[in-house]
C-alpha cells in the first residue's frame, strides 16, 4: 500500500472517530470557548479585547490543541493500537502525517466554530479579506498540529504527561502563536500598513520546518519501547 494511501486511511479513521464521538469534538470546542470567556473577563476593557482579538482566538486554540492531542493518543494507547500499527507495519511517517493531518483538521473545525464568537465577544469587524483570515487560521492550526503530533506521542509514552506536554510544546510554538495572533489581528484591522505578509511568511517557514522535521523524527519515538 502506498504511503499516501496509508496516510489517508489513518486520517480518515481518526476523523471518523472524531465525528462519531461528537462528545469529544464538542468538549474541545466548549473548552476553547470557556478559555475565550475567561480571557474576556480578565481583560480590562473591550478596546483591549478588540486590539488583541487574534491573541484571544489563538490562546483558546492553543489550549484546545493540548486537549486534542491528549485525546488523539489516549485512543491509540488504550489497547495498544499504536504498537499494533507500528508492527503491522504502518510506515512511521505515514502514521505521523495521517495523525498530523487529522489533528490539523480537528483544530480547524474548532477554529472556524470559534471565529464568529471571537468576532462577537471582542467586538471586531473584519475589515481585511476573509480569505486571509482562512489562510492564517489554516496555517496556524497546521503549525500547532505539526510539532504537537510528535510531542503528543512523546508525552503519551512518558510519565507525567499532563504537565510535560505544555512544557515541551508551548515554547516551541511561540512563532506560530505570535504570527497567527498578530496576523489575524492585522487582518481584522484591515492591515493598513501591509504587515501581515511577514507574519504569513513566518508561518509558512515554521510549517515547512516542522512538517518535515517531525515526520523524520517520529519513527524513533514510535518504535522506542
Amino acid at each position, binding site marked *: *500500500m502506498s504511503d499516501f*494511501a*496509508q496516510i489517508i486511511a489513518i486520517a480518515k479513521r481518526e476523523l471518523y*472517530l472524531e465525528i462519531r464521538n461528537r462528545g469529544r469534538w464538542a468538549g474541545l470546542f466548549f473548552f476553547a470557548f470557556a478559555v475565550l470567556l475567561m480571557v474576556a473577563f480578565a481583560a480590562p476593557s473591550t478596546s483591549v479585547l478588540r486590539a488583541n482579538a487574534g491573541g484571544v482566538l489563538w490562546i483558546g486554540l492553543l489550549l484546545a490543541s493540548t486537549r486534542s492531542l491528549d485525546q488523539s493518543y489516549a485512543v491509540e494507547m488504550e489497547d*495498544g493500537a499504536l504498537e499494533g500499527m507500528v508492527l503491522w507495519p504502518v510506515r512511521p511517517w505515514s502514521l505521523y502525517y495521517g495523525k498530523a493531518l487529522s489533528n490539523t483538521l480537528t483544530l480547524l473545525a474548532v477554529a472556524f466554530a470559534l471565529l464568529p464568537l471571537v468576532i462577537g465577544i471582542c467586538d471586531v469587524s473584519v475589515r481585511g479579506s476573509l480569505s486571509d483570515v482562512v489562510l492564517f487560521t489554516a496555517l496556524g492550526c497546521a503549525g500547532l498540529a505539526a510539532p504537537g503530533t510528535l510531542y503528543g506521542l512523546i508525552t503519551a509514552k512518558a510519565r507525567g504527561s499532563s504537565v510535560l506536554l505544555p512544557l515541551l510544546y508551548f515554547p516551541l510554538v511561540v512563532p506560530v502563536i505570535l504570527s497567527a495572533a498578530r496576523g489575524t489581528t492585522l487582518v481584522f484591522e484591515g492591515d493598513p500598513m501591509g504587515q501581515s505578509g511577514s507574519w504569513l511568511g513566518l508561518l509558512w517557514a515554521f510549517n515547512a520546518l516542522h512538517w518535515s522535521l517531525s515526520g523524520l523524527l517520529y519513527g524513533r519515538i514510535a518504535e522506542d*519501547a
Partner: protein
Amino acid sequence: MKTDDASVVVHGLCRRFGRRWALSHVNLDLPQGAGVVVTGGNGSGKSTLLRCLATALRAHAGTMTMGGKAMWTHREQLRPHIGYMAHQNHLWMDLSAHENLSAWAGLGGQTVDAPALLEQVGLNAGRRDAVRTFSAGMKRRLAVARMLLRTPRLLLLDEPFSGLDAAGRTDVAKLFAALRAEGTTLVVATHLPQAVVTMVDRCVTLEEGRITSDEPFSGLSA
C-alpha cells in the same frame, strides 16, 4: 517472502529492563512450520521473548534472523510476515468489531469479508457495537480475527486464550492449528499449555530469562 525462507534463528539474545536482565543468552531455532509453546512462571521472560521476535523490542545483545535476514535491521521488510498477538488486543475501543477489522485490513491495502471472519471467531452478534462494550473474552476473539486478516509466516501469540471460555479456547486453537498446517511457524506463550496441544509439538521453558529446557511436547503435564 518464500515459504522456506522464514526459519528463525535466535542466538545469545539478551534484553534488560533497567538493571534486570529479562532475557539472558537465549538460543532458539525455529524451522519453518515449527510449533512451540513457551512456558515459565511470571517474570520468566516469555512476553519479552515474543516481543523481541515480533521486533517490538530491540535486543541489547545477540542476534535474531528470519530467512537469514537480521530481524531488527530488516524489520520493515519482515513485519508484514510476522503476526503478533500481545497482552493488549491492539484494537480501537470506540470502533465496532466490523470497523476495527476494516481499519486494519485497510492499513494493509486489503479488503475483508468482516462478517465471515467474525463468524469464524464467534463474534457476529456484536459486530456493530463499540469494542468498549465487549467482555474481555469478546475482545480477545476480535484480536484473533485481526490475526487472521493475513497469513503470517511467523505467528507469535502471548496468552491467546486470556478471557476465553473452554469452547472459545478450543475454537481458537483449531484456527491457529490450521494456520500451522499451512506452514506458519507458531510460538505461543501461555500458562495453559494443555490448550495448545493441537497447535504445537515442542515446549520451551524459561526461568529468569534463560531457557532451561527445550523438548518435544505431547500435552502430558510435567
